[in-house]
């Protein structure tokens, strides 16, 4: 186990096995593959055998997740029988969620509630019951392009975050679970667990100094949630227990900081930022993390927990006892090399372009809600109906409808069976919204465009202010200089939008084609989520940077028109707002090519713009609804 990050990942597995309930769980950011499988095998190896490890599909229905009425048994016995769901079945163990980034907000909230209370309460289908569900969650986050991510509420409760990207397969494969090393690892964990179990919780390492130091580190890294600091403390305690040590040492705190706090960091710690030498070395360290860090002396020494003599630069002295501030400084100095590279470049994650988002912490709203299948809309109740006409039978409601008549109907059935007649059939009533996502594509080049950016901002806020009525979303793409960025991923949160919009850059050349291309990509992803995109382009239509990044007006024009044709082929609904003071054929040509509505608006203000968009939105929404209705075909109430 030479690779430092792989070793940390294995340590995370051991810590989770030590204190699964306290840490809540782990976010594993990795593409599916041998490395992730190796990590999961390592986790299984360190978990006690009797603890269940259940896989949960991200689109699991509530009836299976939480439990409910066991219909088969109910029908057989003639009295209501409750059935445990997956969470209750995993009691005392681990729930593994593959493709966690695809998990709906509602499912994530149920997991979070279960983590908080340690039990599942079911109030469904006439069943009121609660089962114990002491679980930890392993969320396998595969959303590598930042397109989708876990909800923040759940992320906050999962203590450990690790990233397996970039760990070579050879490293992970070199530690198969059946080697002596892994066995020793498992035995070590088992003995530590036994150590933990043999003592009451109150005699665990007392840790006031570690507590203050970890809080200090969290504060310096801009990690706000108290849950994170608490998880770091628990991780440090588990690390100490793993070594069968009675006290929490600095190395335990460092491990906890690397696994809990560093991945959540939202800012550079002040002391690191001030020192250019430290910064460069830190950046080096982070870069090496992407490559092959075996030979990096600095990293190895940082990561080798327990080897105090070769500890990283900056702590020649052992921490003076009783000074948590100094200890916090030392922990920071030791772990700063693990800060994500983007953070050190001064990119604040909350305003970083979505296309470049890395790390587990970033997320977009609006994930999950896929509504492509018309049979899978949101159930809004049941009604009497015929299940043969493409409707889905609601068995429980049908049963309920049949239940009161059983005594009366007893005559025509054998005992113990339920007589269901045609008039009892209940079918699900479903509702599907054709929500619109308005994507603003704004030319942020040059000084005049700056005004346009402000107008777009105003229009976005106007639209968002109405958004909660229509449940629509808004996104913003700006292009300037060499390329285009998604500045605001699709959102319906005014709070979030305002925060992101407050610091928009402007100026530079006009990479029009690149902007249109990024927009087409985003529109495609919006389509896949079941929303209908509406693109609003604010430009004068005169690009001067081609798709290849080279300057040149003619080249840029040809490229932009090519992308515009692509838009037309994709069938995107668009509105092109010509922002030039005097009408210019370039913008009109572009609008015609993409078959967009053309709107010359030399001196628009935000209100006029949003009004124009509302008109266009109405058209788009109507069209989407018509398509939806045609595809469904079934009767609607």
């Amino acid at each position, binding site marked *: 186990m030479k690779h430092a990050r792989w070793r940390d990942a294995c340590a995370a597995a051991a810590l989770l096995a030590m204190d699964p309930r306290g840490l809540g769980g782990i976010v594993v950011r990795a593409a599916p593959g041998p490395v992730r499988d190796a990590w999961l095998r390592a986790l299984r190896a360190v978990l006690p055998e009797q603890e269940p490890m259940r896989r949960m599909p991200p689109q699991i229905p509530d009836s299976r997740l939480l439990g409910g009425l066991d219909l088969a048994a109910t029908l057989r016995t003639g*009295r209501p029988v409750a059935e445990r769901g997956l969470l209750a079945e995993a009691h005392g163990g681990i729930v593994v969620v593959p493709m966690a980034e695809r998990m709906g*907000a509602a499912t994530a909230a149920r997991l979070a509630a279960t983590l*908080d209370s340690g039990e599942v309460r079911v109030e469904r289908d006439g069943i009121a019951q609660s089962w114990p569900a002491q679980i930890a969650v392993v969320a396998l986050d595969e959303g590598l392009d930042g397109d989708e991510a876990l909800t923040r*509420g759940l992320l906050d409760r999962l203590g450990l975050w690790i990233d397996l990207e970039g760990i070579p397969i050879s490293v992970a494969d070199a530690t198969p679970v059946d080697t002596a090393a892994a066995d020793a690892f498992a035995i070590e964990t088992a003995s530590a667990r036994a150590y933990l179990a043999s003592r009451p919780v109150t005699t665990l390492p007392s840790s006031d100094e570690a507590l203050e130091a970890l809080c*200090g580190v969290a504060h310096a890294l801009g990690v706000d949630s108290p849950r994170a600091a608490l998880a770091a403390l628990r991780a440090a305690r588990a690390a100490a227990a793993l070594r069968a040590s009675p006290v929490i040492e600095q190395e335990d705190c460092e491990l906890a900081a690397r696994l809990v706090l560093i991945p959540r960091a939202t800012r550079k710690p002040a002391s690191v930022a001030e020192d250019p030498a430290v910064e460069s070395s830190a950046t080096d360290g982070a870069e090496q993390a992407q490559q092959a860090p075996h030979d990096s002396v600095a990293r190895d020494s940082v990561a080798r927990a327990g080897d105090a003599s070769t500890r990283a630069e900056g702590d020649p002295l052992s921490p003076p006892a009783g000074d948590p501030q100094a200890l916090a400084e030392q922990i920071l100095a030791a772990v700063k090399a693990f800060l994500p590279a983007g953070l050190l470049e001064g990119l604040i994650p909350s305003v970083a372009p979505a296309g470049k988002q890395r790390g587990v912490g970033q997320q977009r709203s609006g994930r999950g809600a896929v509504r492509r299948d018309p049979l899978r809309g949101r159930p809004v109740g049941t009604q009497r109906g015929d299940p043969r006409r493409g409707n889905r039978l609601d068995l429980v409601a049908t049963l309920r409808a049949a*239940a009161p008549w059983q*005594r009366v109907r007893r005559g025509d059935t054998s005992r113990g069976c339920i007589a269901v007649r045609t008039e009892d059939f209940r079918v699900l009533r479903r509702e599907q919204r054709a929500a619109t996502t308005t994507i603003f594509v704004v030319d942020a080049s040059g000084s005049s465009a700056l005004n346009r950016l402000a107008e777009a901002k105003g229009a976005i806020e106007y639209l*968002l202010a109405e958004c909660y009525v229509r449940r629509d979303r808004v996104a913003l793409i700006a292009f300037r200089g060499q390329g285009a960025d998604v500045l605001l991923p699709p959102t319906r*949160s005014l709070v979030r939008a305002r925060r992101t919009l407050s610091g928009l850059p402007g100026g530079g050349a006009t990479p029009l084609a690149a902007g249109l291309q990024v927009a087409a990509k985003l529109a495609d992803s919006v389509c896949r989520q079941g929303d209908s995109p509406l693109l609003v382009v604010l430009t004068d239509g005169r690009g001067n940077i081609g798709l290849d990044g080279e300057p040149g007006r003619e080249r840029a024009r040809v490229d932009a028109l090519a992308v515009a044709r692509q838009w037309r082929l994709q069938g995107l609904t668009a509105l092109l707002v010509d922002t030039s003071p005097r009408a210019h054929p370039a913008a009109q040509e572009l609008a015609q090519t993409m078959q967009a509505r053309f709107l010359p608006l030399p001196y628009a203000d935000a209100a006029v713009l949003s009004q124009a968009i509302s008109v266009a939105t109405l058209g788009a929404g109507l069209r989407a609804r018509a398509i939806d209705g045609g595809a469904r075909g079934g009767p609607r109430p």
Partner: protein
Amino acid sequence: MAVVFPFSAIVGQDEMKQALLLCAVDPRIGGVLVLGDRGTGKSTAVRALAAMLPPMRAVVGCPYGCDPAAAALCPSCRERIAAQESAVRSPGKRGRSPQGALESALVRVPVVDLPLGATEDRVVGALDLERALTKGEKAFEPGLLGRANRGFLYIDEVNLLEDHLVDVLLDVAASGENVVERDGISIRHPARFVLIGSGNPEEGELRPQLLDRFGLSVEVRTPTELKARVEVVRRRDAFERDPISFCQQWRRAEAKLRRQLETARQQLDAVTVPDSALEQSARLCMALGTDGLRGELTLLRSARALAALVGAREVAASHLQRIAVSALRHRLRRNPLDESGSDVRIERALTEVFV
């Protein structure tokens, strides 16, 4: 029942604690909406409040926990009284104090957690499946709304709740009565409860109609100073390591708060509202341009509850000032281009009205 974190041990978050206490003093305020960052102790505070509240007297065996002294009883209590009367006296001659016939006991104030994924039939109540299946009887089984009668109904992640459930909840919370017309059952029973919702605005905006129905709205933030944060983590850690002795340490503070609440409840009706306070609250609402009169009513009710809580006999300007932000924050018309938040606008109006 599991040991819960003591209410008085929650670090900071004074606005949230105040709002919850005021609703405990006067349930008519109309509930609290708690919005804010993750990990700020929203759920902790609600559960802690439940454990801290003084017990109440309720009819034994009543599914809705009826108050034996109340004028309006639930259907099941009325049935029992009628049954007793017909057994003892001749029918048609009602006794002077029929309530005296019902056995009652001191019970904990119910705090019902609405679990995510609850279905409508369990929330409002529906046909008792068991009895229908086994005996063929048509009987009503009360849902969570019935259980929450006279207590609190807590909804975590209120913005994730299905729209049709939200509508039902708001309607019942406003009317204090649950009317069930389903599965061939027609019944109405009392459902007076304090609605407490919590959520994170970053997960999605709440509908304005929903916002307006909550009496008070508070925003919680993570403490920014290191010292407060260390204290939060330290207390939580101490609680988790040894909950029983931690609660012992806070027992006296809890008892003190409980006494304060009890006194405030008794004093509530005696607190007077002078005309000057009425005028000030009206001027404040006009200055802010809030829609409807609900804002003013809530402002006055909560100011009165606050006066009772601090032991004052009369609502003073200071009470209005302390509660104005919580009572009005969510009722302002949103102005998308006005960068300043609701809090700032209310503060501005406060300085104008209370010169």
